[in-house]
């Protein structure tokens, strides 16, 4: 049991820092560059993303292991996972609007953007590829979500300052954001080799 916990913790650190989705796996970049201009949107996005990632990891694990493997249709995993995530996002959109309108006004916008995002889809795909157990899948989803949130918050806080900087005209906007990301990614390389799984 103890060993299990340590392993889960290692996986969490690995998913959030060492194999950070944005800086070392290069996923979710569209969202990363799209919503990192303001701190408020960045925080809203990261909360929604983390929640959706954990829940979709759980749902797709159940369906993958209890439906797809017995029926021997694992080659359809891309189609099925997209379906699960889109349905779940649509459902939570409707439920949130009815039950907690306040939260819906804050986070609803982000929910709509999520369903076809590569970072959300990557979690179930990696879980299936690595044959994680239910618990490890959940922890992997959580770690990835926290890692993405960390990346978004760091980037948003830098970009808010960058707005005021005197950047050469052709580099204004996205190009300078890319170069900033390169520098953060270089810093994140420092985590590599901290834990070897």
């Amino acid at each position, binding site marked *: 049991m103890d060993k299990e916990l340590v392993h889960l913790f290692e996986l969490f650190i690995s998913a959030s820092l060492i194999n950070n989705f944005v800086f070392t796996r290069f996923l979710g970049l569209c969202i990363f560059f799209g919503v990192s201009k303001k701190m408020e949107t960045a925080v809203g996005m990261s909360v929604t993303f983390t929640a959706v990632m954990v829940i979709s990891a759980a749902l797709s694990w159940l369906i993958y292991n209890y439906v797809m493997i017995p029926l021997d249709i694992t080659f359809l995993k891309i189609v099925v996972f997209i379906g699960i995530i889109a349905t779940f996002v649509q459902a939570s959109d409707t439920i949130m609007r009815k039950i907690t309108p306040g939260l819906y006004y804050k986070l609803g916008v982000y929910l709509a953007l999520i369903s076809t995002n*590569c970072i959300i889809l990557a979690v179930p795909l990696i879980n299936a590829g690595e044959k994680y157990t239910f618990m490890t899948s959940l922890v992997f989803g959580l770690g990835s979500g926290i890692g993405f949130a960390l990346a978004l918050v760091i980037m948003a806080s830098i970009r808010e300052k960058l707005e005021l900087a005197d950047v050469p005209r052709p580099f204004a906007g996205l190009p300078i954001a890319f170069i900033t990301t390169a520098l953060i990614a270089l810093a994140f390389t420092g985590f590599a080799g901290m834990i070897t799984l």
Partner: protein
Amino acid sequence: MLHHEEPEKINYLKTVLVGIFKDNTIFRLAISLCPAIAVTNSMKTALMMGIAVVFVQIMVNITVSALRYVINPKVRIPVYMLIISGWVTVIDLLTAAFFTQIYKQMGLYIQLIVAFASILARAEFFASKNRMVPSFFDGLGMGLGFLLALTVISFFRELLGKGSLIGLQLINAKPLLIMLLPAGGFLTTGLLMGFFNWIDMRFYGGKGAGGATDQ
């Protein structure tokens, strides 16, 4: 007959060129960025990825265009997603079968073509409103634009990071390791994007806009 064909041909060429240059997925629209950085540390994987995207883009455009009168507009987005993921599964299984070595490095990114904004966007804005032949050329143009962007990025990264091109050793000096690291991908893309913006501003009088995600 010939007289009739001439204007059509120019039109197709223009469709393709718009996809390659004016609406270049990576440098101009700044969407579908993930693989542009993930697979570009060697030209081989970049070309592979580019070809996969050209294939999916063309096939999705043709399928959507062929079914445009059958698909109920109310459920069109889920149907498009289904078509896209179907074709992605095809290319995923094909690469797994015929290019096992490369597939080990980049399988995840091939599967994630499914989430490409550019493919869904072309299905929605072009293929659903046009006949099959123009849709084919539109898909070809967008796909080639993506392939071109990936080739340019990987050209610089492999040349500077390993001193080689498509595995062929060219320079024997000590290479710049940073170009192969994740950071190098962001750096190269950022610099190239700035360069394209500069060309746009200098020669075409553009404003040097930062791309679609930078509203």
